[in-house]
C-alpha cells in the first residue's frame, strides 16, 4: 500500500468484567481509504468504535493515529486530533436547534484544533453550508426532536462532518433508510472521501458496504476473522459460517 498509514490498531483488547468484548484486534487504515467494518450483532463493532474514539478506553494494545499513540486520551482530545464519529442511535443535543447542534463541533473541535476563533458569522455560514449539503437547510431553527428518522441520521452525520475529521467513523448511518436514501448517503460519503477524508463504515446493509468499501474487516465475537477486498470477504468460508452457521 502506497498511502501512509493513518490509523494503526495493535493488539487491542477490551473486556467488561468477565466478558471479552474485543480480543487482540489488529488492523490498519491508510490515508484516504474506504474501509467497511461488518460483523453479527454483539461482535464488538461499536465497542471498537468507542475504543477508537475514546468513549471507552482499551485495556491492552495500542491505537496510533497519524503516528501518535492516542491510548488514554479522552474523547474530546481525539476529535480535535481528527477522529470523528456518528452514533449508531442518533444522540442530538435536544434543547439546541438543528443548526446549533453543528455549532458544538465547530466551536469545540475545529476551533480548538486550529487555534483560530472563528467569528459568529463565519460559524453561522459554515452551519448553513453543512445543512444545505445534507438537505436540512429549512430545518435549521427547528429542535432536532421534530426531525424524521432519516433527517435525524443526516444530522448525526452532519455533526460528525462539521468536526472536519481526517478519519470519519460512520456507525450505522444508514439503518432504517430506504434504498434511495441509502444511495444518497453513500454518494455523500464517496464525495467526502474524494475530498481526502478517510472513512470507516459500519453497516448491516451489505449492498452498501460492498459497493462502498475498498477493504472489509469482519469482526466475530471480538476477534477479527477477515480483512480483505469485499469480493474476497463474501467468499471466505469463515465469514459465511459466522453469518449463516454451518
Amino acid at each position: 500500500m502506497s498511502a501512509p498509514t493513518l490509523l494503526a490498531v495493535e493488539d487491542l483488547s477490551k473486556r467488561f468484567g468477565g466478558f471479552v468484548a474485543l480480543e487482540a484486534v489488529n488492523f490498519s487504515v491508510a490515508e484516504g481509504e474506504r474501509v467497511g467494518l461488518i460483523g453479527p450483532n454483539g461482535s464488538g463493532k461499536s465497542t471498537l468504535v468507542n475504543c477508537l474514539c475514546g468513549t471507552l478506553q482499551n485495556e491492552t494494545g495500542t491505537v496510533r493515529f497519524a503516528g501518535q499513540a492516542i491510548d488514554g486520551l479522552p474523547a474530546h482530545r481525539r476529535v480535535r486530533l481528527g477522529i470523528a464519529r456518528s452514533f449508531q442511535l442518533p444522540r442530538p443535543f435536544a434543547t439546541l436547534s438543528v443548526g446549533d447542534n453543528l455549532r458544538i463541533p465547530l466551536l469545540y473541535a475545529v476551533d480548538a484544533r486550529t487555534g483560530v476563533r472563528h467569528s459568529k458569522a463565519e460559524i453561522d455560514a459554515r452551519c448553513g453550508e453543512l445543512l444545505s449539503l445534507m438537505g436540512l437547510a429549512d430545518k435549521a431553527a427547528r429542535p432536532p426532536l421534530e426531525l424524521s428518522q432519516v433527517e435525524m441520521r443526516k444530522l448525526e452525520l452532519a455533526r460528525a462532518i462539521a468536526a472536519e475529521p481526517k478519519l470519519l467513523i460512520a456507525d450505522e448511518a444508514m439503518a432504517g433508510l430506504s434504498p434511495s436514501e441509502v444511495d444518497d448517503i453513500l454518494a455523500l460519503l464517496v464525495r467526502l472521501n474524494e475530498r481526502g477524508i478517510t472513512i470507516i463504515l459500519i453497516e448491516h446493509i451489505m449492498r452498501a458496504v460492498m459497493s462502498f468499501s475498498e477493504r472489509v474487516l469482519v469482526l466475530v465475537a471480538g476477534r477479527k476473522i477477515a480483512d480483505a477486498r469485499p469480493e474476497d470477504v463474501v467468499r471466505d468460508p469463515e465469514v459465511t459460517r459466522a453469518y449463516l452457521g454451518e
Partner: protein
Amino acid sequence: MGNGTFVLAAAVAGAAVFGLSLLIHNEYFFFAGYVVLQYIVLATAWNILGGYTGYVNFGTAAFFAMGAYSSVVLYKLVSLPLPVLMVVGGAISGIVGFGTGYLTLRLRGVYFAIATLALAVVVQTLIVNWDFVGGARGAYIMRPAQVPLFGNYIQYLFLVMLVLAVVALVTARTIERSRLGYGFSAIRDDELAAEAFGVPTLRLKLLATTLSGALMGMAGAPLPYYVTYLDPASGFNLAYAVNSIAMPLIGGTTTWVGPLIGAVLLGTIQQVATVTISSAANLLIVGLLLVGFVIVAPNGIVGLFEQHWRARRA
C-alpha cells in the same frame, strides 16, 4: 443586544432600582428587598450549574452558609469592609465548589443531587461543632450603625446585594451567549455526545460548579451583618436550597431571565406572606407553586411566553 450594551442596561436598571428605593422611607422595605435580591443571586448561581449544565444541586445552603461563616471568622480576626468579605466568601465557596465538583462529577443525575445534599449536612455538622464561630449557639455580629456616604446600614446592605445581583445576571447572560454557554448546553443534553464532539466536559463542569459556588458564597457573605446573629439553623436553612431550585424552575431554566422572574415573584410573595399570613407559610407556598408550574408550565414562565409567541407566529 451586545454584551457591552447589556452591562450598561443592567447597570442603569440597577441604579434606577436604587434611586427609586431612596424615595421610600420605610426601613422594612430595605429588609425585604435585600432578601429578594439575595434570592436573585442564589437562583442565578444555581441556574448556571442546574439550568445551563443540567446538574441539580441540593446543597445551595452549604455554599451560602460557607460564605456567611467566612465573614464570621474574619469578623473575629480582623476588621474588613463588606465588599472584601464578599470576595473572600466567594473564593472559599468557589474552592469548595471546585472540590465538590472534582469529587462528585463522575456522578450523574440524581446521584449528584444526593451528594450535594450530603455536602450540606457535612458542612453544617462541622460548623455546629466549631466553637470559634459559635458552634450550635451561633455568633453575634455588631454592625456599625452608620456607614460613611450611605448613612443607614441596611440601605448599604441593600445596595451591595443589588450590585451583586447585577453582576450575577450579567455573568449568566454573558455565559449564555458564549462558546461556554453552548458547551454547557451540550453537556446538559448529552454528555457523552458533547465529549465526542470536542467539549472538554470535565473542565466545563468544574468551571460551572466553581462559578456557581462562588456566587452563592458571595451572596452569603453579608448575611451575618444582615441578621446580626447567625446560628447554623438559620445559615443552613432548608429554604435556601428549596428556593434556589424552585425559583429558576418557576421562572424558566434556559435563560438568565427565568431565575430573575422566579426570584422576584417568589421572593416577593414570601415577604408579603411573612407579614400578612405567617413566616411558616413560605415553604408551603413554594411547594404549591412548584406543583402548579410542573403541571401547567413545565418550562417555567419564560417557556410559557415562548410557547405563546411561537403559536402566534405559526
